[in-house]
């Protein structure tokens, strides 16, 4: 059925014209490599976020005044707690702190002051823990990896001096550091007790930055949300399902893919113009002339040209794919990761958990292979139409 000798001849002629074919394979596999790497990184980060959502408090309540977020009264938390389905509510004080004289922005998060006593619960995520005198400390801080490194440059290692918004200096002593495995979540975080945070930001004692609400049964999420909205019309309620939709929006699988696939299409046509536009080299014309003289039909020549295109596009796809996965998940996508990390003093290091998207593989295959085969029809036809007699003269 399939004439394997013709396939052999086609493969051999690819090998013989290695440089011209090699360039096409290189460009195409680079294309597939870029497409798959970008989407594997985006997918991996998105997967990370979606996993985190599972352990987040279900609802964040923020007070909005004049379109801006303002501190929310703490008694709202008690009223929300009274709603059926709410397990616990917790007012929180957190904000951003710009290290004076630098462009370093730190996230200061206030947690309940008894943390040192209950630190055991979060032991997995904290290193360099000096537990023995932890319980006694009141003004403690736990720093994320990036923040700790940076603060070390400014001489803050065991202790940290922050300037509250009235200019008063607050001295905190280190309780521990977040391990590097969680640096994606805590790279710029400084965890302090709620009192230190209140003192730092000058938050009114009866107010908090926002209120988190835990709802064990996900089905009640929407109803509780409406109740809170009804109870406090001037608040903005963000639920984990909104966040999930928002993350999809941000990583925007659709428009990202749209742009990437469009780019692939243009690039593939661009490559083809280079490859096929260059016409058929003289010795290739002579070769086809000889083949026709000794008994090859036009269909035989079309067949080997088709085999050539198929092999080239399959080889490019597979190489690009393999290179992408090794580059992204074995080497952590050294350069392309910069696409996802903005510019900032705290060097963000992302650990990419493996993310395989079969749908993307199928789609990128279908976006590239048919195009190449279609585009190679006309050059293959031109090659098969070479007049044997004139070439051999």
């Amino acid at each position, binding site marked *: 059925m399939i004439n394997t000798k013709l396939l052999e001849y086609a493969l051999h002629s690819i090998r013989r014209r290695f440089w011209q074919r090699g360039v096409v394979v290189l460009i195409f596999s680079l294309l597939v490599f870029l497409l798959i790497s970008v989407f594997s990184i985006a997918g991996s980060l998105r997967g990370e976020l979606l996993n985190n959502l599972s352990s987040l408090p279900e609802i964040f309540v923020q007070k909005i005044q004049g379109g801006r977020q303002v501190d929310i009264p703490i008694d709202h938390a008690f009223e929300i707690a009274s709603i059926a389905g709410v397990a616990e509510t917790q007012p929180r004080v957190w904000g951003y702190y710009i290290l004076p004289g630098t462009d370093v922005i730190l996230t200061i998060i206030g947690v309940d002051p008894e943390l040192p006593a209950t630190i055991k619960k979060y032991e997995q995520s904290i290193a360099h823990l000096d537990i023995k005198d932890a319980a006694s400390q009141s003004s403690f801080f736990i720093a994320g990896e990036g923040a700790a490194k940076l603060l070390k440059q400014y001489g803050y290692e065991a202790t940290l001096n922050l300037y509250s918004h009235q200019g008063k200096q607050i001295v905190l002593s280190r309780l521990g550091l977040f391990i590097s495995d969680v640096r994606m979540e805590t790279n710029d975080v400084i965890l302090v007790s709620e009192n230190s945070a209140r003192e730092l930001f000058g938050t009114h004692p009866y107010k908090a930055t926002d209120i988190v609400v835990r709802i064990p049964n996900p089905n009640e999420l929407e109803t509780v949300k409406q109740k809170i909205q009804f109870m406090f019309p001037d608040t903005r309620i963000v639920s984990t399902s909104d966040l999930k939709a928002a993350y999809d929006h941000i990583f925007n*699988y*659709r428009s990202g*893919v*749209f742009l990437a*696939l*469009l780019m692939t*299409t243009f690039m593939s046509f661009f490559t083809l113009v280079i490859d096929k536009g260059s016409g058929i080299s003289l010795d290739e014309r002579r070769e086809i002339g000889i083949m026709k003289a000794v008994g090859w039909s*036009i*269909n035989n020549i*079309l067949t080997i040209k*088709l085999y050539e295109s198929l092999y080239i596009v399959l080889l490019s796809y597979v190489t690009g794919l393999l290179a992408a996965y090794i580059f992204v998940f074995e080497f952590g996508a050294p350069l392309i990761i910069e696409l996802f990390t903005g510019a900032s003093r705290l060097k963000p290091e992302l650990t990419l958990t493996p993310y395989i998207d079969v*749908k*993307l593989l*199928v*789609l990128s295959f*279908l*976006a590239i292979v*048919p*195009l190449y*085969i*279609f585009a190679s*029809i*006309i050059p*293959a*036809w031109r090659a*098969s*139409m070479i007049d044997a007699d004139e070439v051999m003269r």
Partner: protein
Amino acid sequence: MMLTPEFIVLLIIESVVLLFSTIAAFFASRLAIQFAPQEPSAHQYKLLSQTYLTSSIIQVILFAKLASFPLFIFAADGLSGFIPGAMCAVGVINASSHGPLLLLLKLFMLYFIGSWIVINKVDGTTIDYRYTIRKYKLYLIIYVGLILEVIFTGLYLFDLDLDAIVSCCGTVFNPLSSTLGGRLLHIPNTILLPSFYLTFLIGLYAAFRKEPIVSGIAHSLFLVLGLLTIISFFSTYVYQLPSHQCPFCLLQKEYLYMGYLLYPALIAGTFFGMIPLILKLLINHTVDSYRLAIIFNSLFVLVASAYPLFYFLRNGVWL
């Protein structure tokens, strides 16, 4: 208008197919009028060389169509998350009035282009270009079909209403509802199943006896009955749920992508079963594709019947 990645790739492939089929149509129309192989003029020689271009294009179009048909269903399935009420591709396809028609047209085009390829192969064996002109006239009809398909895809996509609640396989295919699927399924299984196996046996017999007319009719009937019995009978055994009658959920992960084996087997089997009749009618040429018809059809019937059999063996009772 919903632009999910699957639809983007589908539109890329469809627009390339449209571009190349237009090129082929341009040549085909010239060939159909001016092709006179006996006079040895330079113009005729040029036309002759263009026959190779058009047939290569049409062959590649067939492969592109074979890829874009499952992709269309895959894309529709992907949309089921966005359209309220649609659990799978059925709901999405019914979300706009052009959906089912587009699906049937796509299926029909597969058979049409497939027949052209077979005619082209047969024409290659004639020494006097006997069918060349007729096959290019036939291609012009295919070209019209391709244009229709693109128009319907566009219409389908544009009037896809994302907010309207649609009914999915639950209501679309249950015998009580008045939808097209419903009415077709008014035929109770007690009639549908025996007629399904009967047409299969007639087709088998006709294939062995190499009877084009009987085989052609039997296999076209078998195609319709095959699709119906998959929906109303076999799918319930795949899902092991009497009320769940859906042709597309077979394609999903939890049912081991069984649809991707069943449907191609049915389409290939009936195609090879019908080809002898199609070729007899169009170019009065006998071709023997019966062996392939037998293989694919039996594969389809075996795999499809395996589900109820295993279910009965395991549970000792029919659904």
